[in-house]
């Protein structure tokens, strides 16, 4: 039977996971590597949970572990440059640790908002996120310039952000 401590750790982890995942993704662009790092962090958390001081923030602790794992990742891949310096990582770690459940909840509207994108935007979104293509590859596929693809993706993100906010407000008002 799973013990109480593991159960508590898993419950904490479930709540912290979106912020930890995004923290890793902000520094590691390869999706597969992000997945693997996230798994490493989850294991490290379960293995070391007994050392966690529960008077402190679990999310901060988890992000600290993610920070170490990500640092080790870049240490192993010496030809891969660090995206951010330590000051920026520190500031981001603090900001990610401060993410509240209320600020994550609106993301549940994401699928609805993606469905509402026009077909061109949806195609761009698919190629970027589902096919994991970079703007240059998307541009080649669609006969566009890489710059226009980048701008298109920026507009999509911006539009999804607005849509999510509007739906969250509407949902909250009901």
């Amino acid at each position: 039977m799973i013990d109480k401590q593991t159960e508590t750790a898993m419950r904490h982890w479930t709540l912290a996971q979106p912020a930890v995942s995004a923290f890793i993704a902000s520094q590691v662009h390869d999706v597969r590597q992000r997945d693997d790092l996230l798994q490493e962090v989850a294991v490290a958390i379960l293995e070391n949970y007994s050392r966690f001081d529960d008077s402190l923030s679990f999310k901060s602790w988890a992000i600290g572990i993610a920070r170490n794992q990500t640092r080790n990742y870049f240490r192993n891949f010496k030809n891969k440059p660090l995206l951010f310096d330590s000051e920026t990582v520190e500031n981001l770690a603090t900001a990610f640790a401060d993410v509240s459940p209320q600020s994550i909840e609106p993301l549940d509207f994401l699928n609805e908002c993606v469905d509402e994108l026009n077909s061109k935007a949806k195609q761009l979104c698919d190629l970027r996120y589902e096919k994991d293509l970079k703007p240059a590859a998307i541009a080649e596929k669609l006969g566009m310039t890489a710059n226009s693809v980048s701008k298109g993706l920026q507009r999509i993100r911006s539009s999804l952000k607005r849509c999510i906010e509007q739906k969250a407000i509407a949902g909250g008002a009901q």
Partner: protein
Amino acid sequence: MNESFAEDLPIEIESLVSRHFDGELDHEEHQCLQKWINARPENAKAYVGLALLHDRLLEANNQATEQRVDRVEKSLKPFSARKKNQKHLSWAIGALSSIAALLLISLFVIPMLQGTPALAAETQLEQLIEVARKSLDRTYLITSIEFRGNKRNGSKWNRKAVQEQRNRRHGRQQAPVDGALLHVRGENSYVLIRRFENGDEFVTGSDGQTSWSVPPKGRVQVSDNVERFRGEMPGNQHAIPFITLQDDLKQIRGAYNIQWRDSELASEESRSGQHCLVAEKKSAEHRGPKYIEIWFDMETGTIFEMLLDKLPQAKGGPKTVLLELLDQSEMPDDFFQHTTHHDSNRRVSYQNE
């Protein structure tokens, strides 16, 4: 909603952040982004809002793609064809550990599906654990089917090559798990026999009280820590320890969506009389392979083959691993003790931890 999901940003900053997520920034632009993030806590917070959105998009599509690709691959590629593609490559220990997930599911889920659904969860759980405790001796042949060509990250190859070089230099080349035999008994005894190309064997195992390692040369090591030599064992690095079945039952059951495989597909693969369970990992936060197939006899619960696909690749290794049941004969009582696997004149080093 109490707080804004993500602040509105100046268009040039939004462009910078967006292109950062696409990996499009040059060094100077990265410096600019960092400067902006570090300027005010509010900026870092705004970046985080967009990062959460980007990550959720990755996650949503990642899962959808994996499931779709898996389905298409399984439909188009009969099992027999997959077996023809076997490549005999030595592979890293990390990948093997996912086998634990599969064995756990095979031990727990199949009896569960055959059992009475109305049983209370706790009672059912206890019964399943009991089934695992009573499980018979089984011998599996382990085969790595396909090594993932990592086009996305060439450096992984470099890391692997460097590590292999180091290992060779120190005379401790890793024994290949491809072609290894895995003997398991009950919930905490195993013997894993790996063979080098020259025929030498590297045997690791546990009798449930101690764990041990018998290399081709040098000292035999025995530890009172049953986890000491599980580096080579399925489950060691995936938080789904092979040995502690009970502790991880909940985790396994929670981590996978389990369903019956399409019977039409099964019959196309000439497997009449056998049934197949398919388990797909719910999300990346859980460890282990993303896709699992378990072929078994419904009446006896005998598992014939188990396939682990899309194994985590952080530590290298194969993408896909196949376990084939070779034998269910009862092993001798002392089979899971180290003394059975080496000459009596070998030096044995005992470690108390």
